[in-house]
């Protein structure tokens, strides 16, 4: 698990109220109802801050943001400060 993944997981627990016991890399965040879709921008802001990159608006889709694994994979396509450490 890299720094970005660790920070993401911690934020999902602390900021978004995810239950650490049941949160794994494939837990469905939006389609599973864990995060209200209206809060997506808070998650996007977190990703942008951590990576130091802007997320193109058209990339904010379920395929990229519906689980930790998907967000991490998407982050790799963006590049950025923390995701390779």
């Amino acid at each position, binding site marked *: 698990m890299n720094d970005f993944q660790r920070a993401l997981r911690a934020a999902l627990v602390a900021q978004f*109220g995810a*239950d650490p016991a049941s949160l794994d890399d494939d837990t469905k965040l939006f389609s599973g109802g864990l995060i209200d*879709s*209206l*809060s*997506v921008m808070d998650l996007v802001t977190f990703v942008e801050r951590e990576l130091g990159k802007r997320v193109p*608006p058209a990339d*904010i889709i*379920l395929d*990229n943001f519906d689980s930790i694994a998907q967000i991490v994979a998407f982050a790799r396509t963006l590049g950025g400060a923390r995701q390779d450490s």
Partner: protein
Amino acid sequence: MTQTLIEALRRRSERHPKRTALLCGERRVTHGELLGRVETVALHLVERGVRPGDRVLLDAPSVPAFVFAYFATHLAGGIVVPVDPGAPQSRREELSRRVNPVLALTAEALAALEELPPRQGGLPAPKPDAVADLIFTTGTTGRPKGVPLTHRNQATAASHINAVIGTREGDVDLIPIPLYHAFGLGSLRCFLIGGASVVLVQGFRLPGEIFTALESHRATGLIGVPAGFAVLLRFEERGLGAFAERLRYIEIGSAPMPLEHKQALMRLLPQTEIFMHYGLTEAARSAFIEFHRDRDRLDTAGRASPGVTIEARDESGAPCPAGTPGMLWTHGAHVSPGYWDDAELSAATFVDGWMRTGDYGHVDPAGYVVLHGRHDDLINVGGAKVAPDEVEQVLAEHPAVSEAGCVGVPDPRGIAGQVVRAFLVAAADQPPASDTELSRWAARQLEQHKVPSQYEWVAALPRTASGKLIRAALRAQKAVKA
């Protein structure tokens, strides 16, 4: 004027069979194909026993087959009862008990309808005063109100709305609101009979889906609720602003929108007509405002739609002088004939073709409607109504809770308009429950938008001498601190 939408669809299919009616992902459905599927499915429904006046539950996501089944039910003489496919089973069972459907069309059933071999039609169009849809909307007590809308209600409203918005052939309109929602379904009807192509997407789930659909379909129109636009606005120029040259109009409805969001939309979309409607399921789109034209009246709901009258009336039901606040009443051919299975509520709400809206406000001398608020305790979360009683009942069933009172408070994120705040009295001799535990408990029995996002434990809830909860005191944070 057209008295039913089926007749309008038939005319459009005869005149322009090759034009695009629906777009969904990679799929394109022409008006000719749309009518062909509607006629085929209607004959199938009749064979499956659907008779005039029978109820058909439409319990499915926004796919083309939803549209086929919707109009096919009308053509078969049936009444469509749209159901949120994400609704809890208990809600579905309650609806079934109340409407006694002959058929429930789920996503699986719709997939099977796609496989039916084409058949020639010939069924007569429904009668204008027959009920077309029965829409269930949240009531103040938590028992949903069944709102019947006739074919005439719908055809009249669609024609008036299209006159305001100016829907025309060649438009490509994006409907990200689910079709089981009255706003989504109403827009579908308007756009199809207005000759626009309708793009179906699966809700305002994530904004990238909206931006991608706007781009790939070269959409000229977009509808949405204020909460959805609040999310899109956060991308500023690189979001909606990127479509400023192409978007001819947007339509907003279902909840109030903060002034700063209205102004932000005007700044990002200076050439786009930005319409916002005021209405109710029982009297859809009773008034409209266009932000640029009425830039000095953004504090109002605009003026009554064509063919619609709105009056403020006093407690006796007599019209108030211009500018004097009262209960808002609305009149027109768009008004529902009265509630399903609730004669008492119907008698209190519908009088001589007028509807008592439950909203307070005034109409100024220039005809602008200014809303002051609701007379009841309904909470509006991003355009979805929440009856506090229903949430309170679920929370009070938690072992750690003896009493619960819920109110709407401003969403601290500035997105959903309101969120649900719960005031709780602890049950004696029980371990306390965390906010997360309470939210999980509520989410097991309620739709997501009804789950409180804020909790406060109090020693007692404010009640009248007869024991009635005083929610106004909760709103004013006057609960006694624990």
